[in-house]
C-alpha cells in the first residue's frame, strides 16, 4: 500500500502578533511527527510567496484579524486556494486586542498618530503612499470576510491545543478541545 499523500498546509499572520505561530512551533518534537503527515506551502517559515502557487493547498491556517486591505487580499487568496481554512487565535476569531480600537473613529486615530506632535516630526502627514495598504474602519475577525471552516481560540492557543486539533482533523474526526485545551485567553 502506498503511503497517503502528504497534506499541504499554508499559514499566514494578518493583524496578529505571531504569538500563534510561535505556539505552533511550540508543539516541539511533535512537529516532526506532523511533518510525516503534512508539508508546508506558503508560511512565514517558507519562501513561497503565493498561497497555492504550487497547486491547491489542503489546510490554510491564519492568525490575526483583518485590519487593512492587504489582509483582505491575503485572506481571500487563502480562501480561494485552501480546501479547509482555520482561524487560529483570539485575534482571528474575534478581532482580539487590535479590535479594541473599534469604538474609535479611524480618522481620529490617524490624526492622533500622525498629526499631533507626540514624537513625530511636526508637519507629519498621514502617509498616502500607494504602496501602503489602507486601513479598514474597523478590525474584523476572519469569518466576517470569508467563510471559515474551523476555529481555534486562544491568545495564543497552546501548542497542545493546536496539536490536538490538527491530529483530530488529520484523522478525519471533528476536532474536540477538552477542558484545559480550549481557552479564550
Amino acid at each position, binding site marked *: 500500500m502506498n503511503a497517503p499523500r502528504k497534506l499541504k498546509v499554508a499559514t499566514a499572520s494578518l493583524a496578529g502578533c505571531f504569538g500563534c505561530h510561535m505556539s505552533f512551533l511550540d508543539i516541539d518534537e511533535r512537529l516532526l511527527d506532523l511533518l510525516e503527515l503534512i508539508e508546508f506551502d506558503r508560511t512565514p517559515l517558507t519562501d513561497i*510567496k*503565493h*498561497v497555492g502557487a504550487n497547486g491547491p493547498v489542503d489546510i490554510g491556517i491564519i492568525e490575526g484579524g483583518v485590519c487593512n*486591505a*492587504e489582509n*483582505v*487580499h*491575503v485572506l*481571500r*487568496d487563502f*480562501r*480561494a486556494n485552501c480546501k479547509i481554512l482555520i482561524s487560529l487565535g483570539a485575534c482571528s476569531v474575534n478581532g482580539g486586542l487590535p479590535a479594541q480600537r473599534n469604538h474609535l*473613529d*479611524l*480618522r481620529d486615530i*490617524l*490624526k492622533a498618530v500622525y498629526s499631533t506632535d507626540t514624537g513625530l516630526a511636526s508637519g507629519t502627514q*498621514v*502617509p*498616502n503612499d*500607494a504602496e501602503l*495598504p*489602507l*486601513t*479598514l*474602519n*474597523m478590525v*474584523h475577525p476572519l469569518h*466576517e*470576510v*470569508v*467563510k471559515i471552516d474551523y476555529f481555534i481560540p486562544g491568545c495564543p492557543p497552546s501548542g497542545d491545543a493546536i496539536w490536538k486539533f490538527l491530529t483530530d482533523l488529520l484523522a478525519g474526526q471533528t476536532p474536540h478541545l477538552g477542558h484545559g485545551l480550549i481557552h479564550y485567553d
Partner: protein
Amino acid sequence: MIDASQVINSVLERHGRDGTRLMQILRETQESLNWLSPETITAIAAGVGWPRAKVEGTAGFYSFFHTQPRGKYRVLWSDNITDRMLGNMDLMQAMCKQLWLEPGHLSEDGLVSVETTSCTGLCDQGPAVLVNYRAIPRMTAERVEQMAELIRKEIPVADWPAEWFVIEDNIRRADILLGCVMAPGEALKVSLARGAEAAVEMASNERSWREAVHSADPGPSVTLDEIKKSGLRGRGGAGFTTGLKWEACRNAPTTGENATRYVICNADEGEPGTFKDRVLLTRQPDLVFEGMTVAAYVIGASKGYVYLRGEYRYLLEPLNALLARRREQSLLGKNILGRAGFDFDIEVHLGAGAYICGEESALIESLEGKRGVPRNRPPYPVTHGFLNQPTVVNNVETFAAAAMIAGRGGDWYRSFGTAKSAGTKILSISGDCERPGIYEYPFGVSVRQVLEECGAKNTQAVQISGPSGICIAPKEFDRRIAFEDIPTAGAFMVFDQSRDIFEVVRNFMHFFAHESCGFCTPCRVGTTLLKNLMDKIAAGHGTQYDLKEIHQLNSVLQISAHCGLGHTACNPLVHTLERFRPAYERRLKSLDFEPAFDLDAALSQARQMTGRDDADAHLSNELETVSEKA
C-alpha cells in the same frame, strides 16, 4: 419661564406621590417641561420615594419619554409597511430637506426633530405622523410643506388647522358589535335583574359577593354562566376563553392590606396594521366600559384601568369625559345602580410607545410604573396581577362583546359565527385595496370574501394578525377567519402583485428589533441579528448561508425566547420563505458566502484621510479567485 419644580410638584400631588403612577407622572411632567432632565428625574424619584435609577430606568424604556433635550417639535412618521406603501419615506425626506435636518437628529437650532416610530394605528388613512404626540393622518406633499412652514414660524401645534387632526372611523361593515345600540347601563341592569331572578330560587347563606363566592346576590355567577355559555374567546390574539379567565380570577384569593381584584382593558393595540380598538373606543366606548363593569361585577373587582397606547393620546380627554358621565349615571362609582357594595371605577392610563406593553404581564408592570418587561409565568395575572392581586386583562373588543352578551345572553351570541368561534370579529383592513377601514364579520368568513368586499385586486399576499400573525398566498384565500383556521387579533394587510414581499418582511424585522424589550438574550440579540441579515440581503450581499442563519435564529428564538414577541418574531420570515422564496432568492448572490460588511466602504475613512482613490485604495466585495497580490 416655567418653574420646573412647581410643575413637578403639582404633578406629584395630583398622583398622590404614588410610584405605581410613574408613567402618568412622567408623561404629564414631560408635557409641561418638554423633556425629562436628570434633575427632573431626581426630583420625581425623591417625590415618589423610589431609587433614582429605577425612575431613570422606566423613563429610558419608553420611546415617548425623553431623557435627552429635544426640540419644541417632534415629528414622528409612522413607519408601518402600509405607511411605506403610501410613500411616507419620500415625504419624510422632503420634510427633512425643508427643515434642514437629518432624520433622527435635532435641528441645529434645537427647534425640531423628524424621525420614524412604529405603526401608529392609522393604516387606513396613512401616511400618518405624530407631532408632539398628536396624531395627524393623510400626509401629503402639500401638507408637509405647510407643516414645515408652521414649525419654522413656531406656531403652537394647538393652533394648527383643526381638520388635520380629524381621524376617520372608516367603518365599512358593521355587524352586531359595531351596530349594537344598547343604552348605557342596559347590560348591567339586565345582569342585576338576572341575579335577582335567580336569587328567588337560591338560598343565600354564604359570604359576600366581593369575596367572589356565591352570595346573597347570585348575579355575578349567573352572569358568568352567560359569558361561559357564549363561548366568547379573547380578541387580543391568544384567544383564551373569557369565561374561564373570569372564573379563575373570581376564584383566586386576594391578599394583603389592599385586597381587591382588578379589571384591565388592554388598549395598547401595538400590532402593526391593527386599528379596530381605536375605532371601538371612538364609536362604542360605552360598551367597552360597560363590559369592564360587568367583569368587575362578576369577579368582584373594585378598580379598572384602560391601558391606552400613547399613540392614541387624543382619545384621553373624550374617554375621561365619558367616564365622568357614567359616574353621574351611577354606572361607575359607589353602589352602582343602587346595588349596595357594588363599587367600581375606571381610570385611563396612557402608555408611552412600547409594543411589548400589549403583552399582559408587561402591561401590568408598566401600569405599576416599571419597565414594560414580561413577567415569569406562572403565576398568571388571574391570580397575581396588578399589585399582585387577581387581575383580569382583556382586549377592548372582548369587553365590548362581553357587555353585549351580558345584555342579550350567551345563547344569542352563540348563534353568530361558527361552532368553535362564536360571534363576530372586527378586522382592520389596510394596504392595497379600494376601501381600507373597519370590517366586522361573523367568524367563518373567507379571506376571499373579505378581499372582494374591500376592493382588493391582484392580491399577492395577505398578512393577517400583524407581523406576529400569518402571511398567506392566493392559493389559501379560501381559508377562514376563525380560531379553528386563521385566528387574528384584527390586522389584515393586503399586498398586491406590485409589492416586494421581501421589503414587507424587512420592515417587520426592523419593527421587532425596535420593540424587543431586551429582557432575554435570544430576542434582544437575535432580533437585531435578523434585522442586520435582512439589511445585508437588501443591500445585495446575501447568500444561501444567510438564509441558513435565519433558520438557525428562528429555532433559537422558538425554543428559548421569554415571551410571545420573541416566539413570533421570525414568523414573517418563516411564512414568506415557505410561500415567496423567490422574493429572497432573486436578491442572493450565487456565491455561498459574502462578507458581513461592505468591504469597500470599510476603507472610506482611510481614503478620506490619505486622499487616495487609486485601484489599491478600493476593495471589491466579490471574492477574487485568482489574485495577483499577496
